[in-house]
């Protein structure tokens, strides 16, 4: 057998290792390539490359590099100013803007302005938490749910339609609309799950196709009478009445109840994965379907149920999008939340709380990107580039380890779990 390192150590030796000082263990762990460290370093690397891209795409700064040998300080100073202002803006746009904060303390500014950045971050993050969780739990069960986008679109449709057509009283209307989104997504997840379980059809293909189906259904549905806003000539639906909207602080603060719901659902999913019988089944099926089947777990049932839950989560993501921020259906109502969910799940290592934090990070990038675009004139596309770079580095842990000379240690699990998803 080849797993010799794993041989049980002798008892006394084992105890000796325990006796190392806490600090040295901490430092050792910090510099060994565990997943958290790799994740953080991936973000740092992406930021560095993002900075280089900013410099390269800025004509004025590039000009200074033309006489770099004569006066290197010009080019370096200009580069530093450019990159630091841009990232400074990103921070101010996503977490806190010191100017607005002090203005609030002085009484010259409003508290809304002070909390605006964080509100934007959480607004963008809320739907991503749901779609991220959708992808993450499917992954844990060995399925690759590419269909988050379609499920979210169906969630948007069901929530919006239920919201503006049922005319239920307040509170109830919101609950029904949310449930409609959840059920819509669940049905959209059930189809690939059932087909996989019954016929072995690959969930990747089916979910990709269902993404198109959902998107095209949305563009068709918006123009139908009863859905289309009669006041408008363009493709936009009626608005969801206030009774079905997720309550927010109002004014410029867009953050709504969706983020609270997202945290609760994250906690629920974390419980489900680790403490529920279904979570045990899905993790078993995800890790080794043969052993799961031999132990009496129904693999087909687990796949089907798992896709239903994953679809429901993505549907809920669509629901928060339409009931929390968009309020109307447009062809692009779901934006890219389904596909961003893939990245969020990857960044969060397919763990519920990790996914929550990853979604908030993506929300922050997006919110900060808006400010960066308007203040520093750097294209919002850079945010997409940053997101992509982070994911690339995370998907290639070996690369990060080589760059930072990390100890090759117990990470690299991700590679395996990724491969299993296919």
């Amino acid at each position: 057998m080849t797993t010799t390192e794993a041989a049980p150590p002798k008892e006394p030796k084992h105890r000796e290792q325990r006796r190392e000082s806490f600090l040295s263990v901490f430092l050792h762990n910090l510099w060994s390539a565990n997943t958290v460290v790799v994740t953080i370093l991936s973000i740092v690397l992406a930021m560095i490359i993002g900075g280089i891209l900013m410099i390269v795409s800025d004509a004025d700064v590039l000009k200074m590099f033309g006489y770099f040998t004569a006066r290197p300080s010009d080019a370096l100073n200009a580069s530093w100013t450019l990159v630091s202002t841009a990232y400074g803006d990103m921070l101010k746009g996503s977490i806190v803007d010191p100017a607005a904060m002090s203005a609030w303390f002085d009484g010259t500014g409003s508290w809304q302005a002070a909390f605006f950045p964080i509100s934007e971050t959480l607004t963008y993050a809320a739907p991503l938490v749901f779609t991220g969780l959708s992808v993450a739990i499917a992954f844990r069960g060995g399925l690759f749910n590419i269909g988050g986008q379609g499920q979210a679109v169906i969630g948007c449709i069901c929530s919006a339609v239920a919201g503006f057509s049922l005319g239920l009283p307040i509170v109830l209307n919101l609950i029904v609309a949310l449930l409609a989104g959840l059920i819509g997504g669940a049905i959209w997840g059930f189809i690939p799950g059932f087909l996989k379980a019954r016929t072995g059809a690959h969930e990747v293909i089916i979910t990709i196709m269902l993404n198109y189906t959902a998107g095209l259904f949305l563009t068709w549905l918006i123009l139908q009478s009863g859905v289309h806003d009669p006041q408008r000539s363009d493709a936009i639906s009626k608005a969801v009445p206030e009774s079905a909207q997720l309550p927010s602080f109002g004014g410029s603060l867009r953050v709504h109840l969706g983020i609270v719901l997202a945290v609760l659902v994250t906690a629920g999913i974390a419980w489900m994965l680790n403490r529920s019988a279904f979570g045990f089944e899905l993790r078993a099926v995800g890790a080794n379907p043969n052993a799961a089947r031999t132990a009496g777990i129904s693999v087909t049932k687990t796949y089907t149920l798992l896709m239903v839950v994953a679809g429901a989560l993505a549907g809920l993501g669509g629901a928060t999008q339409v009931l929390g921020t968009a309020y109307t259906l447009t062809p692009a109502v779901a934006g890219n939340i389904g596909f961003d969910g893939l990245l969020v799940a990857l960044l969060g290592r397919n763990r519920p709380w990790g996914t929550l934090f990853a979604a908030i990070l993506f929300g922050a990038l997006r919110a900060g990107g808006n400010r960066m675009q308007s203040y520093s004139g750097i294209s919002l596309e850079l945010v997409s580039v940053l997101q992509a770079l982070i994911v690339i580095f995370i998907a290639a842990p070996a690369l990060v380890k080589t760059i930072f000379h990390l100890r090759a240690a117990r990470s690299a699990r991700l590679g395996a779990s990724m491969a299993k998803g296919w």
Partner: protein
Amino acid sequence: MQALLGENGAGKSTLMNQLYGLLQPDEGHIVVDGEPRVFRSPRDAIAAGIGMVHQHFMLVPVFTVAENIALGAEKVRGGPLGVLDRRRARREVIEVSQRYGLPVDPDELVENLPVGVQQRVEIVKALTRDVDLLILDEPTAVLTPQETDELLSVMRGLAKTGKSIVFITHKLKEVKAIADRITVIRRGRTVSTASPDTPEDELAALMVGRDVSLEVVKTPAEPGREVLKIAGLVVDDDRGVRAVDGVDLVVRAREVLGIAGVQGNGQTELVEAMMGLRPVRAGSITVDNEPLIGMTTKEILHSSIGYIPEDRSHDGVIREFTVAENLVLDMYDRPPYGNAFRLDPAAINKAARERVRQFDIRTSSSEATVATLSGGNQQKVVVARELSRPLRLFVASQPTRGVDVGSIEFIHNRIVEERDSGTAVLVVSSELDEVVGLADRIAVMYRGRILATVSPDTPREEIGLLMAGITNGSGGSPPKPAAGDGVPGEGEQ
């Protein structure tokens, strides 16, 4: 011919992987022909005349034999961007296989070859690289007894032509049969170098570090009621080919029925059909007169039937799961571990700590993943899981495959204890020694049928002939004698 003997996880493969350049030594050095050498990769090792055949074959299944052998040392015609010289590769294969008496068909696809022949391809591949030292890592682990004999004679032939062979194993019989020198390794250290005349139990004691009994100690069986009854069972394999072709079996309480046979004669399918893992074409399976056919695997496992699957890492454990989780893999949704909705981690962990102690599972903690355990301890996890609930019927398929000597002894004793507590036990094994040691009756399976049911006192040669499908032995035993034939002490009912 040097044999490297040691338990699973003793460090044999790690040592050889360093020699082959797959791993780099932290300290110390490797000396080849009097010269210290550093191998950064297998390429260096091959250049120094060292070849290795891995336990898990490194072959591309959809390539032909010749292509596989050429892989990594492709001969090219017409410069660096030229075409592959397939003809030359083919010729080379034929030449080497003739020179060393290792017949392989260069044009056959590797996926179509039986395991024994695939291994031969690996050996030919190493030989075409002109190696002087050949490392064979657990070469017999996947072979049938016949294939093993064949391999041993090939190895003898190679040694005669002047090649050095390092043979890694934990099987004592093979070592004694073939090695010129035996080095025993335990926990990463050389314990001793022995000669092949050393008695088996002494070698086993060296490997394990304490005395072990190779014989299964048990009292004669006192069979009780008929628990498992199988009649006219017909099962197909994955390709739709008939694998079990009319099997009748009876297993009584308080007895061990062993099924002997060369692998691939329908044993796997028989057991899988019993456990609800494979559809049944015809026939009946009953336990205490309740039909099993139509029940789900979960229902079968929950009706006091225990099952050890033959392929531990494939079907038995989930390597990513903790020991505790693996110990409840088929009972997680039953009290006290949980219910259909939620688990009770406290109960699961408490039970796990108990099992780890009872079954002597060597692990750093019950929270460690099973992947960190040695093969024998992984198997103990499976055994502990299945034997920790009251059973009517216990089905153990290859219960000690790839398990070290110390654990084999332990598992065998547990199986006998289970029998003595009143359970009907069915043991399927391709190791004849195991079947003979454990069973109170032996059913020999050949091509999907039970050829005969004999007593374990039957001479080995006779059982061996039955395993090869030859029934007209000394006694002229009929092809299908009634179940229960030749049971010692079969008195009642």
